[in-house]
């Protein structure tokens, strides 16, 4: 038996195992049974008859989608068949693992010291009265905040939010990424091309070159019409828009993830984006999902977490301050608070280099049976976390659907943007890709900025860490995220960052200080994402 054959056998077995434990399996079985009991099916062609009936009812599409998403998730986890301990599967490189651990410890300490300073617990059960009060205010939490409560005497009390501060900001995380150094790497002498003394990132990971990126993003070529440019009002619709819409309707009807993905590579038309994203992510709601969300909501009511205040503060500092997103404030709480209680998120730590923080129920310190993760989903929000959700609010007006789309996007893409890992999609690789691409494309600009003490990554890092949300106009963010989903890769983020530097080159060449450079790149709201990407990828 050859290795390949064995591997594919293994794969089949895995797929089958996955399917059997899914609810789809039961549904299929029930439908097949119903079909088999029909009187118009002859016993001789029972198998064929049942199969045909299942196909006619669209079950083959559901099956295909389920298998596609399963395989994609596997691929996402590791490029090769990973071996070794779970720790090694999470992150194979020892010093990267250590960097992540040290970083987590720092976060824990800062969270603990905040608790001690403010003398508030990390989590407590809400009294009955407070629960009821919060339930009433569920759709308008933005007014008074989650920790707020109207006392019996009518006096408002709550935690003083001015004392709550974000646990960390992109700047702090950049320090971690920059500080990473391989102990086995010969110190930065000048050894050929593998040494990059210009940039800030000092790890030698393999990142793609411009040519590889061109191949990967070939659908973005200048010769190809793109949604978001060629369907604007000033372009006659018969050139592109009419055909695109017609094709889009067909794609939507097919409801098949790979087809949606292929179609979305040239951007999603605004009216179809919500559905296309659902197809690409495999989000299909049933009544169980609705119930599950309701349960999460009841968990939010039951317990008061410090993380709620962090999220609340974050929304106040970011989305509420943003003229595009402030209307969604209440919406954001309805997503973020249940998200922090969702233990489904814990599963993604199997392939994330991060580890969820641990704690013990009060008075049971060190007793393993009373060990819990905190927060329940294991994710401690940072300054700007709410911006991962904000652009999605334009797409879905149903909170439950919005919740599941965000959850899927988080466990598939966004978690990589704030954990230290050697994964090619991780923030370290993306930062390196940004620096190398900018050095290769605009060497004089990079050199100039470096000379005046303004490392480009110091500006671009926050863009990438937030996937540009809040930095670009919201419609442009959605066009950008179309490409993340369609190409199933975050590499478009550093490419865009390079494009922005390249686009503002003339002004940047004149700056002499870091602040001046930051000012040149402060306002990106007028930028058009797709032409910029094309500029960076294909203009030279």
């Amino acid at each position: 038996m050859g290795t390949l054959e064995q591997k594919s056998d293994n794969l089949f077995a895995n797929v089958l195992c996955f399917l059997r434990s899914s609810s789809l399996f039961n549904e299929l079985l029930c439908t097949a049974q119903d079909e088999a009991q029909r009187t118009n099916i002859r016993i001789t062609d029972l198998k064929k008859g049942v199969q045909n009936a299942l196909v006619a009812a669209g079950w083959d599409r559901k099956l295909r989608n389920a298998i596609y998403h399963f395989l994609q998730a596997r691929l996402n986890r590791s490029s090769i068949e990973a071996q070794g301990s779970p720790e090694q599967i999470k992150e194979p490189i020892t010093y990267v693992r250590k960097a992540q651990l040290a970083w987590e410890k720092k976060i824990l300490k800062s969270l603990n010291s905040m608790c001690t300073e403010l003398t508030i617990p990390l989590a407590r059960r809400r009294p009955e009265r407070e629960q009821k009060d919060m339930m009433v205010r569920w759709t308008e939490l933005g007014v008074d905040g989650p920790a707020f409560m109207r006392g019996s005497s009518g006096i408002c009390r709550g935690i003083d939010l001015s004392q709550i501060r974000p646990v960390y900001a992109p700047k702090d995380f950049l320090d971690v990424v920059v500080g990473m150094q391989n102990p086995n790497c010969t110190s930065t002498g000048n050894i050929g091309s593998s040494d990059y003394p210009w940039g800030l990132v000092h790890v030698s990971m393999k990142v793609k070159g411009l040519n590889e990126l061109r191949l990967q993003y070939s659908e973005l070529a200048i010769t190809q019409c793109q949604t978001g440019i060629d369907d604007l009002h000033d372009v006659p619709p018969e050139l592109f828009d009419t055909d695109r819409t017609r094709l889009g309707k067909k794609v939507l009807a097919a409801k098949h993830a790979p087809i949606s993905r292929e179609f979305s590579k040239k951007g999603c038309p605004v009216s179809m984006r919500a559905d296309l994203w659902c197809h690409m992510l495999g989000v299909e709601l049933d009544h169980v999902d609705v119930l599950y969300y309701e349960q999460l909501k009841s968990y939010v009511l039951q317990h008061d977490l410090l993380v709620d205040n962090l999220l609340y503060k974050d929304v106040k500092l970011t989305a509420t301050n943003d003229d595009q997103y402030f209307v969604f404030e209440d919406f954001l709480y309805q997503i973020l608070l249940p998200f922090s209680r969702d233990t489904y998120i814990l599963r993604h730590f199997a392939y994330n280099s991060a580890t969820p923080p641990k704690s013990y129920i009060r008075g049971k310190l060190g007793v393993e049976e009373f060990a819990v993760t905190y927060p329940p989903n294991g994710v401690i929000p940072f300054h700007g976390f709410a911006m991962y959700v904000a652009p999605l609010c334009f797409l879905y007006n149903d909170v439950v659907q919005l919740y599941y789309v965000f959850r899927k996007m988080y466990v598939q893409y966004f978690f990589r943007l704030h954990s230290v890992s050697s994964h090619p999609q991780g923030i370290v690789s993306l930062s390196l890709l940004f620096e190398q691409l900018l050095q290769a494309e605009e060497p004089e600009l990079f050199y100039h900025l470096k000379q005046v003490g303004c490392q480009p990554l110091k500006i671009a890092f926050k863009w990438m860490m937030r996937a540009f949300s809040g930095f670009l106009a919201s419609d442009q963010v959605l066009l950008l995220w179309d490409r993340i989903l369609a190409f199933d890769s975050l590499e478009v983020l550093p490419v865009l960052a390079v494009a922005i530097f390249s686009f503002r080159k003339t002004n940047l060449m004149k700056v002499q200080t870091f602040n001046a450079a930051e000012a040149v790149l402060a306002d990106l709201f007028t930028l058009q994402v797709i032409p910029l990407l094309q500029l960076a990828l294909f203009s030279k």
Partner: protein
Amino acid sequence: MNNKPLICNVKTATIPTVDGRISTQTGCKIIDITFPNVVNPEVGEVCFQNYYVAFFTLKAKIKLTEQTPREGPNDHGWRMVVRRYQLMPDPHAENGAQDCFTITRQQFSCDLNQLISLRLILQQPSPLWKDFGLEDLKLFKTTGAPRAPPLPSWFMEEGKSKAGKKELEGVPDINSLSSNLQQLWALAEEVAANQTDESLGRYEVDGCYDINLLAYS
């Protein structure tokens, strides 16, 4: 792993010398393995964790007997088993530098029995790394990789038509009845084995989730 690793003597890695001088930048290391306490050693699998080795070569010295086909007149029994197996896709980059590898019989170009010794040749052409080597080196007699569970029969016999026909006459006999019952039992077992991994989403312990501080672990 379901079987124990072979007992063997792994010598420390040596750097090959040129004219008696040792250069640290040769990018090559040699590890010799002998089997002092094993009769007729046989190796079916080599497992290790990589540490910045780019290419892995495995050579074996086998006992030459009358039946062994010779390779030329000066055959001392050395056989090439694995030639320049690539562990790091790019020697200059971290990828694969600390991954775990299992090299099994399928990758061997000849069978490893009647062994006298094994020689591992490690190569790292990139000057970027201070050191390189293998960790957790283990040899196994048989392939210990987890076997794939057998595929269900309906998956394999696609298109094959059932030849046997059952005749039903009134009440089925006791044999078929019992076999049916057995099937039912098997089905129940199967269902029990296929529990979904859908969790209930509970995060508290006994309804309690009062926490003061986080634990450092």
